[in-house]
């Protein structure tokens, strides 16, 4: 195969949405090429136009999208002007797509086998037995160990990693020339992420199909892409060979992106020194946490599931303890137990706050910051109200003092008082997380539990939030318990790291 042959070429493509008479451009004169057999990375923040580019190639743009200029050429076919019928014939057969949402991208009512096989049925003619055999072969090829069983299973019965493998099998079963993988690993745990990337690489080596890998995560792009395109605000800001691009970024934005990747840059490590003889602020001894499972029917027995097994942790004042583990390891359950949101516990959780009794309205309760700042902020209230509420409940400050406090806090988290009049949906993800942190800090806690506070944010925003957390810690002498599945984030901010797996501490070390 000639490696330099062009498979797909996008030329001067602009796409916009008209909103209230104004054209809102989401892709601004994009030009790119994909060669046969190469893996091209597209990296950028959410809203940079990566996914829109992919949807344009697939012909899956929302109906409200308007093509303003340019074209997409795929092996001599102009995709944007071709009829729906011809385009449909290319979809799946020549160009297929792997999506991020490995659960919702499958039909919950059909078996994995039926859904993978459907792709074959649409684009080829075989007998019933041959269809099944080919489907099972494809499932085996993506590393699913029991393909015969998985063929008959439903999406909810598989783990996230297995579903993503099945989705790759579905995308590849009809033998496409181009696979577009849109954030294929973002929803997965780090250990599984790398396996999925290796799988994509393996399929590329074996069958020579080209892959466009879209991600916000530089490390993902770096691991398998030969060439990379950096996008921001609908424009391509830089492109080139991956290694070169990331060792010698020219564009300011690329530089920022590279700088925000923790493993590439050691400067970000938390240098805040913990007092050697500081007191323990949180003592956890032999903690066991349970969940009651709902009984089935009237006669069913209630079962109790143990989530945390015999955990003991000591957190000293002023330090940042990282808790790391895969999803389902019990991290969040532990956090909820500490703040008192979980009642079914055995063992000791003691919070010593030496400044508990003070006149400025501070409280001894630990505060919590959640992963999903959108879901945890009341959508019908303004930011000012949201910030003031904990003060109303937990302090006896007057109205004036409360407002002064709110104004002070919003500036502490790097925003201005004009945001107090806005609603949560009017803010960006990073701003919402800043507000969530302000809500936690406004009552002057000494201990703050942060449950995946940056996981839903883009890398550059992540770095900003982590930096802000460190600053606030210095200023208010805070103690953090920082929960994350991402070791890189943990290393950036924590003094000590505690690794938990299946509810037990498997490792405890200095960062």
């Amino acid at each position, binding site marked *: 195969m000639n490696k330099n042959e062009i498979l797909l070429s996008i030329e001067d493509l602009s796409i916009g949405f008209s909103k209230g008479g104004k054209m809102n451009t989401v892709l601004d004169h994009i030009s790119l090429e994909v060669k046969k057999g190469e893996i091209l990375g597209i990296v950028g923040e959410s809203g940079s136009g990566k996914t829109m580019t992919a949807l344009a190639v697939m012909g899956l743009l929302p109906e409200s999208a308007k093509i303003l200029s340019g074209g997409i050429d795929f092996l001599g076919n102009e995709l944007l002007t071709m009829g729906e019928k011809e385009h449909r014939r290319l979809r799946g057969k020549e160009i297929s797509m792997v999506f991020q949402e490995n659960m919702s991208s499958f039909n919950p009512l059909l078996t994995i086998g039926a859904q993978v096989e459907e792709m074959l049925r649409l684009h080829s003619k075989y007998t019933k037995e041959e269809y099944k055999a080919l489907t099972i072969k494809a499932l085996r090829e993506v590393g699913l160990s029991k393909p015969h069983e998985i063929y008959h299973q439903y999406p909810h019965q598989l783990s996230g990693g297995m579903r993503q493998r099945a989705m790759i099998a579905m995308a590849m079963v009809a033998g496409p020339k181009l696979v577009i993988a849109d954030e294929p690993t973002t929803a997965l745990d780090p250990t599984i992420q790398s396996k999925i990337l290796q799988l994509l690489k393996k399929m590329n080596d074996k069958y020579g199909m080209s892959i466009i890998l879209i991600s916000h995560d530089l490390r993902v792009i770096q691991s398998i892409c030969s060439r990379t395109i950096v996008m921001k605000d609908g424009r391509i800001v830089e492109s080139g060979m991956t290694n070169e691009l990331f060792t010698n970024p020219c564009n300011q934005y690329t530089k920022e992106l590279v700088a925000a990747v923790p493993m590439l840059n050691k400067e970000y490590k938390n240098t805040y020194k913990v007092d050697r003889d500081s007191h323990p602020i949180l003592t956890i001894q032999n903690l066991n946490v349970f969940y009651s499972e709902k009984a089935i*029917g009237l*006669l069913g027995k209630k079962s109790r599931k143990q989530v945390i097994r015999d955990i003991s942790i000591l957190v000293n004042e002023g330090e940042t303890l990282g808790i790391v583990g895969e999803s389902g390891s019990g991290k969040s359950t532990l956090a909820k137990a500490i703040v008192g949101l979980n009642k079914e516990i055995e063992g000791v959780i003691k919070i010593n706050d030496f400044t508990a009794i003070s006149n400025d309205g501070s409280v001894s309760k630990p505060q919590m910051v959640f992963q999903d700042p959108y879901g945890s902020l009341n959508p019908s209230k303004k930011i000012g109200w949201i910030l003031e509420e904990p003060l109303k409940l937990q302090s006896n400050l007057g109205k004036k003092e409360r407002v002064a406090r709110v104004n002070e806090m919003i500036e502490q988290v790097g925003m201005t008082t004009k945001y107090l009049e806005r609603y949560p949906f009017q803010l960006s993800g990073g701003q919402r997380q800043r507000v969530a942190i302000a809500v936690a800090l406004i009552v002057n806690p000494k201990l703050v539990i942060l449950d995946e506070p940056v996981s839903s944010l883009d890398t550059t925003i992540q770095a900003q939030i982590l930096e802000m957390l460190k600053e606030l810690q210095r200023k208010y002498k805070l103690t953090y318990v920082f929960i994350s599945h991402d070791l890189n984030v943990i290393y950036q901010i924590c003094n000590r790291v505690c690794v938990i797996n299946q509810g037990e501490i498997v490792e405890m070390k200095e960062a």
Partner: protein
Amino acid sequence: MKYTFKKCIVFIISLFLTSFLTFTAFEVIPGDSALSALGMDASKEHLEEYRKAMGLDKSLPIRYINWLKGAIKGDFGYSSSYQMQMKVSTLIKNRLIVTLWLAILSFLIIVLVSIPLGILSARKKNGILDDLITLVTQIFMSVPSFFLAMIITLIFGITLKWFRPGDYISPEDNFGGFLRFMMYPAIAVAIPKIAMMVKFLRSSLLREMELDYVRTAKSKGMTKISILFGHILKNALIPVITFLAMVLADILAGAILVEQVFNLPGLGRLLVTSIANRDYAVVHVIVLYIASLVIIINFIVDLIYQWIDPRVRRD
């Protein structure tokens, strides 16, 4: 399978519980059944004798068990409106046939009309056809079925003379004529429900169309129509089934006003007259019938869910 078995046991227990509760409730209601059976001027001895003969002097649990023994065999006692000459079971049976046929016919009309209309409306979203369907359903949803019954009588009965208003044909006399006559009340019952179903199905379909798995299906190169029937419809029907079950329970319980307008000897009218005549034996059975109906339909819906949705299956 184990789950289904458990569900069955729970189902049987709830039926017994319902029967016991309704029995107790009718025991608690003030009023003396001996007095109502024999009349106000019956002598004390007569009353005592009657109570003894009917087992009314026994304690509540024993009376319940006696009642249950009869009930299982289909014997619910005698109706006091017919001077204890008419068996409650016979009375109800005749009325039940009318109500059941009315329910079956209107349920069929509801399903056969609303599902295609809902799909059409969702497919042509925001088109003229969709707007028209939305407008018509909006109107019919706000019209009560007894008023529709009057309009239907006026148009098809009086003006077009397709049927004779008020001239009920019993199924024993002429089954074909009975069905033809029943079509009109069935339509009156069905129309408001159809309007609700179309609206409900349309929004359920539109919600499903936005989901990720539909995008996946598109990326496979499927046509819109095969995505609709192959993927979306089954998912969209899940909430609709619950709604349909509620509709079914509602129409099986009898449509009192429509029965009144068309002069149908249905269960709804029997309930109203029995309550007016303090004919508790009959009222009791109808209440029990309605309560059991809800339990049975819920049980069936549960089974259907398990059959359709693998996420609900638990083994």
